[in-house]
């Protein structure tokens, strides 16, 4: 009974707080160099939202503008670095990515919208970063890039950028993708750390609200790697790790099974949104 009464008080107070600040994503449309982006899509079946919303809709006008124009977008500099790496010969086989895959605009189109996907060789989902490493080690006789280093984020961004505008749609029917999706979902709702928060605590229950200066979005991955005005070019697993650290929990390693499951699940949560790589974020 007490609980009920108090919930009533909290509710009433919550209402006043909501009217005090703007809590919603903006009503705006994104075109990048004239190409329309899908920033709102009907949620896939099984999602707790009706609509999936790009993080772009939660950003300030100036930040949104930076993303509209590839000349202004500071994330295009690393993408261009990635383009150089694409045709750079490396490793004992004397090959570059271009040797086998030719023009990335053709061969890599769609990759950013369909990864992670099932990789029968490792019997796990594979993301673009790990696919790059797979080709480097198995096809080029080159070393795998360490996490966040050596051009990993630049090349990943260059590849994903070839899918700019395409709607995200990963294939859960291949291999064991479905069970990785389920593990990812489990993790998404698991509260971690001393602060006892799950991804869903912030990105589902409170999307649209402010946590200090941060306008909480749905935590979508369709813009990664993103250019953060605060801290520069940022990979997806770096962002995942940062969010987990903020709950005061131990951070899983990049590309660990946990984070691959999470990437699979969270990518699915953004089904239908355009690939925006490189997105601009605060």
């Amino acid at each position: 009974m007490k609980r009920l009464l108090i919930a009533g008080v909290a509710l009433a107070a919550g209402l006043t707080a909501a009217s005090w600040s703007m809590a919603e994503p903006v009503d705006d449309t994104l075109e990048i160099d004239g190409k329309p982006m899908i920033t709102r899509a009907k949620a896939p079946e099984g999602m707790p939202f009706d609509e999936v919303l790009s993080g772009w809709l939660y950003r300030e006008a100036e930040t949104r503008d930076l993303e509209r124009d590839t000349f202004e977008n500071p994330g295009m500099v690393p993408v261009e670095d990635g383009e150089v790496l694409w045709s750079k010969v490396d490793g004992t086989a004397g090959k570059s990515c271009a040797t086998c895959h030719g023009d990335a605009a053709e061969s890599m189109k769609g990759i950013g919208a369909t990864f992670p996907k099932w990789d029968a060789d490792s019997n796990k989902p594979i993301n673009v970063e790990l696919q790059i490493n797979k080709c480097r080690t198995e096809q080029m006789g080159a070393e795998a890039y360490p996490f966040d280093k050596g051009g990993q984020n630049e090349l990943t961004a260059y590849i994903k950028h070839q899918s700019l505008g395409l709607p995200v749609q990963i294939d859960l029917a291949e291999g064991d993708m479905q069970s990785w999706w389920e593990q990812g979902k489990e993790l998404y709702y698991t509260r971690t750390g001393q602060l006892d928060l799950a991804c869903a605590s912030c990105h589902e229950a409170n999307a649209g609200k402010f946590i200090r200066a941060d306008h909480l979005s749905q935590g979508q991955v369709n813009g990664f790697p993103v250019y953060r005005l605060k801290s520069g070019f940022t990979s997806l697993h770096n962002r995942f790790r940062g969010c987990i650290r903020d709950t005061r929990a131990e951070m899983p390693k990049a590309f660990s099974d946990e984070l691959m499951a999470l990437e699979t699940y969270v990518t699915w949560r953004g089904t239908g949104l355009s690939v925006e790589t490189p997105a601009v974020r605060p």
Partner: protein
Amino acid sequence: MMRRMNFTLGVAAAIMLSTAALSSEIAPEAVEFTDEGITMSLTGTPGDPVEGAKVFKNTGLGNCLACHANEDMASDQFHGDVGPALDDVASRYDEPLLRAIVVNSKTIFTDETVMPGFYSLDVGKNVAEKFVGKTILTAQQVEDVLAYLGTLKE
């Protein structure tokens, strides 16, 4: 002159009290929740509202402003709105209930609440090593925050 003496005496008394109280600090596992909330002070030492305001703002301590707006701190930028505004909160709740909310809000709201328990060891999975077995706030910091919340009354 007189006033100053009183003041010094008061401080001395408070210090003596706090030394006495240290031994009677209630451990997080031993906190007793009743229907009214937590009726006993966690330390026996009255909270200090000035310290409490600092704990409230500090991003590494209470970080209450991350989720709650508070007009009393209008000069601080960026108040969150994940939780309700705390203006006048002391008129809405008595101290024992406020203590329970700050110690472990799940006992008052629902298990689903996103407000952390500030003096609770009932926390999430995989707590980072440096926080294992530790509460977010100390018992005295909780009492200080409560003293500050007590001032939020019209």
